[in-house]
């Protein structure tokens, strides 16, 4: 026991002794918050994405807006809630689409099928990886991992028809009996 303490002293001497003093009661920033702060400052949003923090003091909860500038979903404005648990980055952030949209990998409740949000999440991944993944879903909807089976079948069997249905759904129309939310700006 005593031995470690003397080793600690030696280690300190070896390092420089700058800023040794610390005063008063410390109020700690939690590890998850530190990591999110780091991730946020490394976020590259480009021109198609924007964040909104309902409460700027709570950086674990925010909304991400995506407006794809190419692909089948061009012109739509989509938003996702990000909920980051205190276990981040051990656990992935919880991400959900706020609009009801016609997409093979997003279901009508807004659940997103993106591998890195579930089975392929690793603590070395960051928020940037997640938003790149989300952006990619709008550029390349993936019919082989369907969450909305009808949309996936549609995309697989008739790409042009699927494109038309996406346009209809995005302007608030009805596709196969489901009415979707209008996500295109006037």
């Amino acid at each position, binding site marked *: 026991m005593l031995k470690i303490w*003397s080793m600690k002293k030696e280690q300190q001497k070896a390092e420089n002794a700058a800023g040794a003093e610390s005063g008063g009661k410390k*109020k700690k920033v939690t590890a998850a918050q530190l990591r999110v702060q780091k991730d*946020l*400052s490394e976020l590259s949003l480009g021109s198609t994405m924007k964040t909104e923090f309902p409460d700027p003091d709570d950086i674990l909860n925010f909304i991400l807006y995506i407006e794809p500038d190419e692909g089948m979903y061009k012109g739509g404005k989509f938003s996702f809630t990000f909920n980051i648990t205190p276990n981040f980055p051990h656990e992935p952030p919880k991400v959900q689409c706020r609009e009801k949209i016609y997409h093979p990998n997003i279901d009508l409740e807004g659940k997103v099928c993106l591998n890195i949000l579930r*089975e392929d999440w690793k603590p070395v991944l960051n928020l940037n990886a997640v938003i790149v993944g989300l952006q990619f879903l709008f550029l390349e909807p993936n019919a082989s991992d369907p969450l909305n089976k009808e949309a996936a079948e549609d995309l697989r069997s008739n790409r042009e028809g699927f494109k038309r249905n996406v346009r209809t759904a995005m302007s608030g129309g009805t596709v196969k009996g489901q009415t979707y939310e209008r996500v295109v700006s006037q």
Partner: protein
Amino acid sequence: MSSAALLRPGSDVKRWKYLDNVRTRPGAFIDPDEFDGQAVVDNMNQMKILVIGAGGLGCEILKNLALSGFKNISVIDMDTIDISNLNRQFLFRHADVGKFKAEVAAKFVEKRVKGVKITPYNCKIQDFDEDFYQQFQIVVCGLDSIEARRWINATLVGMVDDENPDSMKPLIDGGTEGFKGQARVILPTMGSCIECQLDMHAPRAAVPLCTLASIPRQPEHCIEWAHVIAWDKEKPFPQLDKDDPEHITWLYQKALERAREFNISGVTYSLTQGVVKNIIPAIAATNSVIAAACCNEALKIASSCAPFLGSPGEAEPNYMMYSGNDSIYTYTFKHEKKDDCPVCGSKAKTLKVNPRWTLQELIESFATLPEAQLKKPSVRAEGKTLYMQFPPGLEEQTRPNLGKTLEELGLTAGTEIAVTDPAFMGVTFNFNLSFA
């Protein structure tokens, strides 16, 4: 001093004979000139050691520590005893079901090992502050949650005061999952910490959402479907309580329906419970191996009778992994401290500031700090986002703070602030405010 002089009369002598041989005789790793066996025993007699968790690992750890000559033990656990614990948590009996684990475990060990005092705390570790943890010399964890580990780790790292060597508490962390386990020793700020090693924990295996939604193949897929998809859609109760039999029954019925639809067999109530609560069968033997390794480290640290895991040094190991999956395999290695670890990467430095400075002035002052020279810093304090340069939306939202003074922002002396800057990818600078 001869070891015979230490053997007091009475039945105790026999019980502690071999332990005292280890503690009072100079071993091969000891400087014989400085060795004082009686001092080792005296030191251990008055040392306070904290055990976190009184479950599968905790029961073993408490028993081992008591039999290793620790006399003053405290134990924290918020849980009560469940009937399913009884097969391996051997300090509990059927009549104890429903009682607090810490309390029952403490009583049992006190009764069996005379002369040991065990103080139970039936609460969460987060209920205590640094002043509480300051009273112990060693902390041993037998936890099942990563969140609790990260909390105690950050707390112990934050407590280290360079002026006071006693403030550095060795943290011995045991963990098991089925046939696998690990024992590691953290010397806060001196070596790699739990946050540095976070990527050593494999996140729980998950099934792709689309498999659940479209092509379930296994009974587990049907249960997960009921859990993550059907529940959200139908919301039979406002909040899922995994310990409420009514809720589990609802999930079980849903999973059963889905399993029938896809011709899958094997969905049962207990499987539903297991999948939803992510239960990995606990193996009593793994717990005892890992607890033994942890308590060995505690004894070695307390008595200096042999080199321990975690001693600082070029190649000194601090992590022992154990696998009983395919016969028995252990590997001991050194996990490096991470320079960019958000918890121990940079110690909070004292920053002298004027409370009447605006946040803008504070931020500009970072540019001239000799050690950092931060050009585009983002600043947060506990529970408060002061100013973030990125992303643009948050910059806009926090910009009004720049004109406010530190006082107006509610920053007091001793507040810790975390500063990040894109020029220092991944490094967080921590400062402790001190008012000049």
